[in-house]
Structure formats: C-alpha cells, structure tokens
C-alpha cells in the first residue's frame, strides 16, 4: 500500500553508543532539517506538515499541520509550544526511549515547530517519574544552547528560542493537554472546558500548541526527506511510521517501529516483533492503543495499527500501547485493575467521573471476589454509560476524555467477554482461582 519503502526513522539510532549526544546526532545528519527550515517561510513549513499527513502520536491522532494552522497569526500575545512527555497511559512506553536515546531528534522538531509557529518559548513537560529520561533530555538541551540551536539567535538567524524542561509530580491527568497547561502554570492538574482550544487560549491565556514527543520527532524527517517520501511511508490519511509498544503475555515485548499498515496479529506473531505466545497459549484479548482503548477479541486482530482502521473497529490506535492477554487470563480481574487506575487518577471535577469510576471498581471487585449478583452487570453497564455511552467513541458527559477512557474498557470488556463475567457470578468465585494473570503472571 505504501508508496515509500519502509524504514525505521524514529528508532534507528536507539541502542547505539552515545546516540543521545549532539555529536552523534550531527554525524547522522542531525540539525540539517532545521538549517533547511530556517531558509523557508513559516507558512510554507506548516503547509508541508499538513501535506505530510503527520498525525498526533499522543493519543487522539489529530492532524498536526491542521492543529498548527489554528494558531492565530495576528495575535499580539506571545505564543507557546508545550511538549507532552507525560507518557502515563498504561501500556505506553515509547516517548521515554526517544528522550533517553535520541533526545536531539525531538529538540530539532521543537526548533522547527517553534520557527513555523512564531514561538519563542517552549516547555517540555515530562512526567515526574522520568528521572533518567529528564537527565538525558536536560543534557541535550544544554548542548543545544551551547551549539546555538537554542538561545537569542537560532543557528545565527534572527530568531530567538528558549526551551525549558519541567517535571510533573505524579498525576496521569496531566497528560491531558489542558491539565498539562494548568500544571505548567503551577497548579493542580484540572482539565479546562474546551472550547476555547489551547491553540487559541492556552498557556498563560496565550495561543499554545501541545504536541506529543514522538509527533515532534517526526518533523525533521518531513523537512529532510520531503513530504512525498514521508507521506508515502504511511497510508492515505496517516503519514510516516509509528512506534508501537507491545506488552503483556507475549514472547518478546518491546517498542517496535512499524509501518502504518502493520496489523495487530503481525505485531504479536511476527519474528521481527512479538514472536508469538508462550507455548500452548492462545490470544484471548488485545488492548490496541493504551488501556483507554476498547479491547478486541482474538478474532479481530487483522486490523492495521493506524488511526482510521482502528476507528472502523470502534476502538483506537491511541498512544500505540498494545497489551496482550492470553487465554488463561481473567478478564474480570484485568478490567478491575484498569478500572481502579481510572478511579485513582480521576481529578474529581465532574460528578460522573468522580463517582462513577470508584463505583465501577467496587462492582468489579465484588464480581471478581465471588460476591456478584445477576443485576450487577446491568448496573455496571449503566454506570459506565452515565460516564460515557458507547459505541461510538466520544460521547462522554465529562469535561475531559478521561471519563471516556474509564468507561470504554468497561463497555468493551462486557461486550466481548460477557460470558466470563456471568461465570463469575454463577459460580460465585473467579474460575481462574489464584492464577488470574495468565501464563507469565506467576513471577519467579
């Protein structure tokens, strides 16, 4: 399908000696794209990014060029770029490798984006737990200042850019873009009502673009190798390659860079990637895009890990977090753990989310512990619907999409594995006994 032969572009240097240094990055041709971009007119760059079909890698898959074009050109206020490195969606662990092994690729993307948008201050927001990634990124920022990439004159041009790293302090909700902005403003992470969108009213009330780490790491490649080449790597509506994070019960978990038309079953079974299931086990369930994405069954894996293809299946490519569960894994226990996460991380602003997420958790615990009653499934589904009905995705009754994220797993697990929930209630116990966590759940 793709017009350009696949090659890894984001992960190509990972694991190589000193891949995170400016010297190595330059040896690989680094910062050539920035040089090229600084010769162009800013609107021209935004246009290229639009044509590249680059879509946000943070979860929503929003077209990046389009987002950039929403920033008002004539606003007298300063504009900001906020980089989302909160990476807290369960099952997602890709941005940390960019930060650890190739931070300059992201920094070059930042500089190009800032020039295109007329931004003079960028904040890179990393989740608080990212101590080592922050050290690498901070060292790279320092190198970039020393080399004149950041500072009063970017590469000698009359364009100033400052870049600061900020660490969060442990709150999943701060990955949501408006909560991230609140946190950057030094407040608790309470999402804002949208509209207005951050592109118009963002940080300190000024126009702000929020982009994911991986999204920005793609930008230099578009400038370097041309928009046809880049768009050709992907499908009609999604340009480039993508990082997917494979975890759960599979033989070789890890981050893999794949072409957009790679399917879930290829990822799980191919020798290049997951190398299949442990001996004697079969796939039961796969969460395709971080724990917020509706779960798929074993017969639904021939779907490409691309935004549009996943939408057809009523699920999401999301943040690229693919979690595999084998046929000896308890679905009730799994969903209970996921539900507990959202109850823990709800910021508490909206009643359906604040009250609904712990309610779901209590019901699931009750069922898993063998105390479930037949009416509980209906009630569980009602509670989830009052946070966000499904299908389709996106009907949430709450300020931010954490509500949707909390309800979608419940709806989809109930839809696909209802018999397992019923068995718990009927048998008044978990059929998996004290081994609910599948083939690798026993720890050695």
């Amino acid at each position, binding site marked *: 399908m793709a017009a350009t032969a696949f090659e890894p572009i984001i992960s190509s240097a990972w694991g190589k000696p000193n891949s995170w240094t400016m010297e190595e990055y330059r040896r690989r041709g680094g910062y050539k794209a920035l040089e090229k971009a600084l010769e162009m007119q800013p609107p021209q760059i935004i246009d290229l990014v639009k044509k590249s079909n680059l879509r946000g890698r943070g979860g929503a898959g929003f077209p990046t060029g389009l987002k950039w074009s929403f920033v008002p050109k004539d606003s007298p206020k300063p504009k900001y770029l906020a980089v989302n490195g909160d990476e807290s969606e369960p099952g997602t662990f890709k941005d940390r490798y960019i930060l650890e092994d190739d931070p300059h690729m992201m920094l070059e993307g930042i500089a190009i984006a800032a020039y295109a948008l007329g931004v003079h201050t960028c904040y890179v927001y990393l989740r608080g*737990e990212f101590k080592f990634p922050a050290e690498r990124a901070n060292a790279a920022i320092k190198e970039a200042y020393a080399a004149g990439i950041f500072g009063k004159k970017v590469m000698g041009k009359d364009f100033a850019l400052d870049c600061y790293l900020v660490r969060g*302090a*442990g709150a999943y909700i701060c990955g949501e873009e408006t909560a991230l902005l609140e946190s950057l403003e030094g407040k608790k992470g309470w999402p804002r009502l949208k509209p207005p969108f951050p592109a118009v009213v963002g940080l300190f009330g000024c126009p702000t673009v929020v982009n994911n780490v991986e999204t920005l790491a793609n930008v230099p490649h578009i400038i370097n190798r041309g928009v046809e080449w880049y768009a050709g790597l992907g499908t009609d509506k999604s340009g480039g390659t993508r990082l997917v994070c494979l975890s759960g019960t599979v033989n070789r978990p890890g981050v893999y860079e794949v072409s957009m038309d790679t399917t879930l079953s290829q990822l799980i079974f191919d020798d290049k990637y997951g190398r299949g299931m442990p001996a004697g086990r079969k796939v039961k369930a796969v969460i395709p895009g971080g*724990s917020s994405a509706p779960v798929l069954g074993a017969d639904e894996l021939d779907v490409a890990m691309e935004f549009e293809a996943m939408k057809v299946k009523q699920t999401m490519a999301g943040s690229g977090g693919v979690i595999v569960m084998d046929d000896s894994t308890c679905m009730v226990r799994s969903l209970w753990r996921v539900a507990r996460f959202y109850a823990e*991380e709800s910021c508490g602003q909206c009643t359906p989310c604040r009250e609904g997420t712990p309610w779901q958790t209590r019901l699931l615990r009750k069922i898993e512990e063998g105390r479930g009653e037949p009416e509980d499934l209906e009630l569980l589904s009602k509670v989830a619907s009052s946070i966000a009905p499904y299908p389709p995705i996106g009907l949430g009754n709450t300020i931010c999409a954490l509500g949707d994220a909390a309800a979608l797993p419940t709806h989809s697990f109930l839809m696909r594995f209802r018999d397992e929930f019923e068995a718990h209630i009927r048998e008044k116990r978990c059929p998996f006994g004290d081994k609910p*966590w599948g083939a690798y*759940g026993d*720890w050695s």
Partner: protein
Amino acid sequence: MLTTRPFGPYVAPAMAEPLFTPEEQKKFDADIADLLSRYPEDRKSAAMLPALRLLQEMKGWLPPEGMKLVASRLGATPERAYEVASFYVMYHLKKPGKYVVDVCTNLSCSLWGAEKMLAYLEQKLGLKAGEANERFTLRETECLASCGTAPCLQINEDHHESLTRAKVDEIFDKLP
C-alpha cells in the same frame, strides 16, 4: 511539659531549628532565582511544581514552613502551595522512609507477576503496601512506562525493570 494551656491564647511552638543551613539557604535562593527566570515576570507562581520539587530534594519532604517559604517567593499563598502539593502523589506531606519504594501493579506489570512481586516485598520489608517505617515507604503505584520490561519498581525515583526475585534481592540487600 505543655507549652500551651488548653484555654489560653495560642502560642506557636518555637521552631526547633531553622529550615535551612546558611549554605542550603544560598542554594535554595539561587535555584529559585533560576526557576523564576524561566517564566514571565507576572507569572511567578508557575514555578510551583519545580519549586516544591526543589524543596523536597533538599529536605526529603515538604515541611509546612518550607511550603510557606516557597509560596512567599512565588508571590502565592501557602494554601496554593498546599493545594498543589496535595494533588500530586510524588510530593511527600509527611516525612517518608529513607527509601520510597513504588511498585507498579498496573495491567502489563500484573501480567508479568507484579502482584506476586509486591507480596514478596511486603514480606521482605515487613510492611503492607501503603505503610512506612524509618527505612522504607512501600507503595503500590500506577504504570511507570516500563510495561515492556515488566515488572518494575522505583526506589527514590531510581528505576529498576525486568525484575526477578534474584534481582529484587540483590537490589534491596545492597541498599546502604
């Protein structure tokens, strides 16, 4: 001996010792100034998260008088500092054990035995998740972005992954 009488006027207990030594105070002042230089002049309070982190790195937790000091430097009220400090799980409003141990038990880690690992640690450290003693604070935590190298844990923000029983023993037995 009681220093305040039950019904008399409130007498604030004298602070046992100042928050910082003179050298610490110097470092704190310089670091706060550097943080403030990163934000617009009229947005000093934006530095709240990094400033609280600085305080915690220096004191091991967030003592109330420290939060007051941070707030005053940022032109914010102490309540604002407390509001932020109590929202984020990485800030310690009470003095934690010497080692804060955060064990991820989210889905991908549990599929690789995280619950069993936590049970083993509870036994090894003689603490239940959520409890603390002088040496350890043991907590269950959410996904740490190591799902591909599960199970994992952090000790005072130092990350350990692909953990086996032998590895856990080695790490904990080596702690000074």
